[in-house]
């Protein structure tokens, strides 16, 4: 529970916005398939984060690597836009790609619980990998709630799955891909955070 709540308390931190904003945009772009996309995204973000902490994932996320990363982001958003035509596992896969990239790019600010997870990631994989999913579920809770809302309250489904919301999500996705490709993504998020907190 403490791990989940630490994730929830991290929602408003600039460090967490780095993964929160693209996941939110991906959910908007996926519209009616947002729940599946978000589920795939949360698990993939967490597992890539865990793999990095455990030393199983040491691929660079800078230099020339930003080009394939940006292409993967653009592809994930393009497929998310069309995800209503994809089979369920296709929509889940879109989330896995989007979330995997987010976990790859993330440099987190670490609280007490997350520190315990990353400290033991290598030695206790069967405990720490699920805990990382729990932490990420907390950190991405607003997006999860947004994806669950149309299913819990069908009356607002039309508004939350409207094509214009999808277009907005896809546009943010395009900006995300471009800013990652130019190496300015973190600066963009930092500016958003600074503007919103002043």
């Amino acid at each position, binding site marked *: 529970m403490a791990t989940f709540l630490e994730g*929830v308390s991290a929602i408003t931190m600039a460090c967490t916005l780095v993964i929160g904003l693209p996941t939110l945009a991906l959910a908007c772009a996926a519209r009616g398939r947002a729940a599946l996309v978000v589920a795939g995204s949360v698990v993939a973000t967490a597992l890539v984060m865990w793999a990095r902490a455990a030393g199983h994932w040491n*691929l660079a996320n800078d230099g020339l690597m930003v080009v394939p990363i940006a292409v993967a982001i653009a592809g994930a958003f393009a497929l998310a836009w069309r995800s209503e035509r994809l089979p369920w596992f296709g929509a889940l896969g879109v989330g896995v790609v989007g979330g995997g990239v987010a976990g790859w790019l993330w440099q987190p600010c670490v*609280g007490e619980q997350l520190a315990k997870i990353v400290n033991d990631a290598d030695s206790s994989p069967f405990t720490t990998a699920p805990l990382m999913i729990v932490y990420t579920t907390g950190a991405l*809770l607003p997006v999860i709630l947004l994806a669950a809302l149309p*299913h819990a309250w069908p009356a607002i489904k039309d508004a939350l799955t409207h094509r214009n919301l999808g277009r907005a999500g896809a546009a943010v996705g395009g900006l995300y891909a471009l800013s990652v490709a130019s190496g300015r993504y973190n600066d963009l998020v930092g500016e958003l*955070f600074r503007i919103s907190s002043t």
Partner: protein
Amino acid sequence: MPLGRLFAIAILVAGLAAVLVTALGGDDDTTESVLATEPTNDTAADEPRAPLPVLGQAGNLTDLDGWLNTEDTTFEQILADNEVVVVQFWTFACRNCKNTLDAMGELYEEYRDQGVEFIGVHAPEFAFEAEIPNIIEAADELGVVWPIALDTGKENFHEWQEGRWGYWPRAYLIDSEGQIRQNERGDGLAGYRELGENIQRLLDGDA
């Protein structure tokens, strides 16, 4: 009611409850001291303790953009002038880093005149954290009075932290031979209390 809808409602209720619990939980701020206290159990105090592990040789601090709160210096000079050095990687907009600053300040006040130096290596995540006037203002507001090494390009942040995974905050305790004796990730108060105890052990030659 369809099962899927019930599930979605359960997620919403649980999620909103978690947000409420977190919001009502308040800040992580604490006034609890991290300074070592006298052991209350005499038996435990008499037992010889295992030496602190040697976690490798500390790296250097290079390609810095300067220092704050101290004369222009080098990491080698600080190592040569002190018995113990604490190096903490932080950045001023990181809440987890801020959570540790009271503990760092308390340790600094306690040990600054005992041959212990503290270095806050400021490694910004975002562009606004890299602007030196912003760092000076934030350090002043946050009460960071110990030396700050400006690692704007994050070369040292990545060099010191293994693989391609960097954390804020992360603190290293370094002995007189330049060896890392504690590697503290995150903002846990227990870790900073242990840092205080280990500083004392190094000063006492009990490590």
